[in-house]
């Protein structure tokens, strides 16, 4: 009987606009974007130009420092633009879809699935980046030998999609093949983490080498970093790999059908969505194809991902590589008269300093206002309440700001990623940019260790 790890620390932000359990069908975007900025630490080197014709699964760019890791087109079509930002940094490669042709990577029979074959398929098809690693929360290095592999089978972030619902509407065979294939990368063993009471375990419990873990508790109980910390923590010099369950199904399809077709079920959520529901879409697809007429007019922020860690996109921007969710919330660029002094019945807060804390069930329409100015660290003991790890977040952040490598190691920099401390950033009364500090610390460690 698998045990349930019960987490108490954490916090669920009660937002309006959770997706109803309804499939709205497939979104058929014309434009697709592949964004190097989805992969922290990546220095992309382009293999295509504007106007190049590509098949689904054909290379668009590769990692300059690890050239075997390539990034490929989700569809057949033509590269219509390559958007660049400051200092000519590549922001997105945009492909216009034409037809359905795809590169044939060859079908793999169940008994042919070996470590070598799986690695080969992942790297050749551009699907390798679904495997990420701790430490550093970056795309895994194919030459490493991980001490274990985790697959995240649920999401606890605000308005997150329901994985049980996704599985009900998916081809389970793809998932099973993908999980089995991944287990080959870790000596035939794989950890699947599910939400407490999830029915999904029955789909997978007979896969050889699988170990299913259950987690309960508020966000961030669904973060891979939290799972790894509680089951098989990363120490200095060790590497643990992890992937998302939906991404694993793309691997399953690749092996079964021989094509790269990164299809996912995505939840459209947020208070500004008229009809929050689920859509089937290929990774990188333009969200305009399913968002357009389902959003309330106004000054809105479109986010690929959730409100804590997602990426800000245009209303016709592209779904991020790792995202299974699009969130639309109102912008908050307004002045509020004596806002800090009001009783605050409608002001949702982690702290109990507003009257809203008397209504523990209400859901809120929250906007992007900062609600204050940046200050030094003053209040203590708050971050710890939302980080279910044996880690002192404030001390770790201070070590990063001081660039004290040894202290960062000691305080657990190898175990955390931005997303694990995203709630700390949300509730910080001093409005400190915690996620960028964490990433700065990780970048510093990568530089120091290479």
């Amino acid at each position, binding site marked *: 009987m698998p045990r349930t790890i019960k987490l108490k620390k954490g916090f669920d932000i009660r937002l309006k606009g959770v997706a109803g359990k309804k499939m709205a069908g497939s979104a058929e975007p014309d434009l697709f974007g592949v964004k190097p900025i989805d992969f922290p630490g990546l220095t992309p080197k382009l293999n295509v130009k504007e106007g190049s014709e590509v098949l689904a699964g054909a290379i668009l760019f590769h990692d300059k420092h690890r050239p075997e890791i390539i990034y490929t087109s989700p569809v057949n079509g033509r590269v219509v633009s390559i958007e660049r930002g400051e200092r000519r940094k590549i922001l997105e490669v945009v492909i216009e879809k034409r037809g359905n042709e795809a590169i044939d990577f060859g079908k793999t029979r169940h008994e042919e699935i070996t470590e070598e074959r799986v690695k080969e398929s992942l790297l050749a098809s551009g699907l390798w980046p679904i495997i990420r690693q701790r430490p550093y929360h970056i795309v895994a290095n194919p030459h490493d030998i991980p001490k274990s592999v985790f697959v995240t089978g649920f999401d606890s972030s605000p308005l997150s999609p329901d994985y049980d619902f996704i599985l009900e509407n998916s081809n389970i065979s793809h998932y099973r093949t993908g999980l089995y294939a991944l287990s080959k990368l870790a000596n035939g063993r794989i950890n699947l983490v599910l939400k407490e009471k999830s029915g999904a375990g029955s789909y997978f419990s007979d896969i050889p080498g699988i170990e299913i873990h259950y987690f309960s508790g508020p966000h961030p109980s669904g973060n891979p970093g939290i799972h790894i910390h509680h089951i098989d923590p990363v120490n200095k010099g060790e590497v643990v790999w992890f992937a998302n369950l939906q991404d694993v199904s793309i691997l399953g399809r690749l092996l079964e059908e021989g094509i790269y077709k990164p299809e996912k079920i995505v939840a459209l959520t947020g208070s500004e969505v008229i009809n929050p529901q689920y859509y089937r879409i290929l990774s990188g697809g333009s969200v305009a194809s399913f968002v357009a007429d389902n959003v309330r007019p106004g000054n809105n922020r479109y986010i690929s991902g959730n409100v804590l860690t997602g990426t800000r996109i245009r209303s016709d921007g592209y779904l991020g590589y790792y995202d299974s969710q699009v969130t639309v919330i109102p912008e908050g660029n307004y*002045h509020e008269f*004596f806002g800090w002094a009001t009783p605050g019945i409608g002001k949702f807060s*982690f*702290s*109990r300093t507003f009257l809203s804390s008397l209504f523990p069930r209400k859901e809120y329409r929250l906007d992007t*206002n900062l609600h204050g100015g940046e200050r030094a660290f003053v209040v*203590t003991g708050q971050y710890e309440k939302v980080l279910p790890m044996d880690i002192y977040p404030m001390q770790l952040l201070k070590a990063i700001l001081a660039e004290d490598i040894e202290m960062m190691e000691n*305080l657990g920099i190898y175990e955390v990623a931005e997303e694990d401390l995203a709630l700390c950033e949300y509730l910080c009364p001093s409005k400190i940019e915690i996620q960028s500090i964490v990433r700065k610390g990780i970048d510093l460690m990568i530089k120091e260790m290479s």
Partner: protein
Amino acid sequence: MNSLRKTLDKLKPHFSKGGRFSKLQSVFDGMESFMFVPDKVTFSGSHIRDYTDLKRTMTIVIIALLPALLFGSYNTGLQHFRSVGIESGIFQSFGYGFLRILPFIIVSYLVGLGIEFIAAQIRGHEINEGYLVTGLLIPLIMPIDVPLWMLALAVAFAVILGKEVFGGTGMNTFNPALLARAFVFFSYPGWMTGDTVWTAGLTAGKNIADGFSGATPLSLCVTGEISRLPSFMEMFVGTIPGSFGETSVIAILIGAAVLIATGVGSWKIMAGVFGGGLAMGLLLNAISANEYMHLPFYYQFVMGGFAFGAVFMATDPVTAAQTEKGKWIYGFLIGVLSILIRVLNPAYPEGVMLAILLMNVFAPLIDYFVIQSSINRRLKRVKVEIKTSVK
């Protein structure tokens, strides 16, 4: 409100970089953000942020201080009229006391905020809210007969040398309010000890009623006049001489309830201080070598600034221990030291101030040991794994 907003928008360019009054930018920003929560939106990281900020946090502390302020006003009047032998009503007493404290509060804020504004402008930072609380705490822990110039000097000392030289709110080692009190205590001991300074007008000594001494319970204890102590109930309610806001344990407990209910003040520190005081009080009771040690331990909680220090001073998050386990230890040691200094050191009738300032110094050390234990757990994990893999 809208017209105010428009005026501010019109004025803003003059105070921005390159404007005529750009030297006053911090002051303008401070005033603007005081009246209007800024329209800034999230740029990177989390797209939504909590409604709480430091202004809100500080406001809660000020609300928690109000009962002590109100009762202090009443008690100051009450003590004054007692000293001159006049019967007075509640409102008369309150009115007198409030008018006495008002100049203290005004001077404290003018001097303190003035320095904060200048410091923020020099650094090019936004103005920090920390002084909103400190500025009210300082008058509440002063004897009412302290001259205003002395208060102004103490505030300047506390803010400049206690806080700004360290980098402002969040960077200081010592509790600034206590530093202000310590400044007066050591520089002008005559104004912080003895029997006359605690009652308004008693220092001047005009028309004093016969038999009124103005001695605080703590000074009675030190001078061995324990038989003259007010009743426990009187000290609990707070109708006794003492610093302005410290006398009423009831008012302080209401404040503590506000701080704990909102989560702004650490209940662990408060419980730690009372726990430490209890432990030391019981120990002294057990030894009972003199009359003061024999005094039941619970009297210690209602005399002097013990309760006020536990609830409002020890809980300052910047100068306290910052780890949760550390907070227990920090609070406990403050409680122990407060009573220890009080009872065993005749030079200092009140030990709370010195105990907290001393523990401010040791708070980082406490945190160091707490964090080291987490680091050791992490290192041990590696060793255990190496062992198991060798098998």
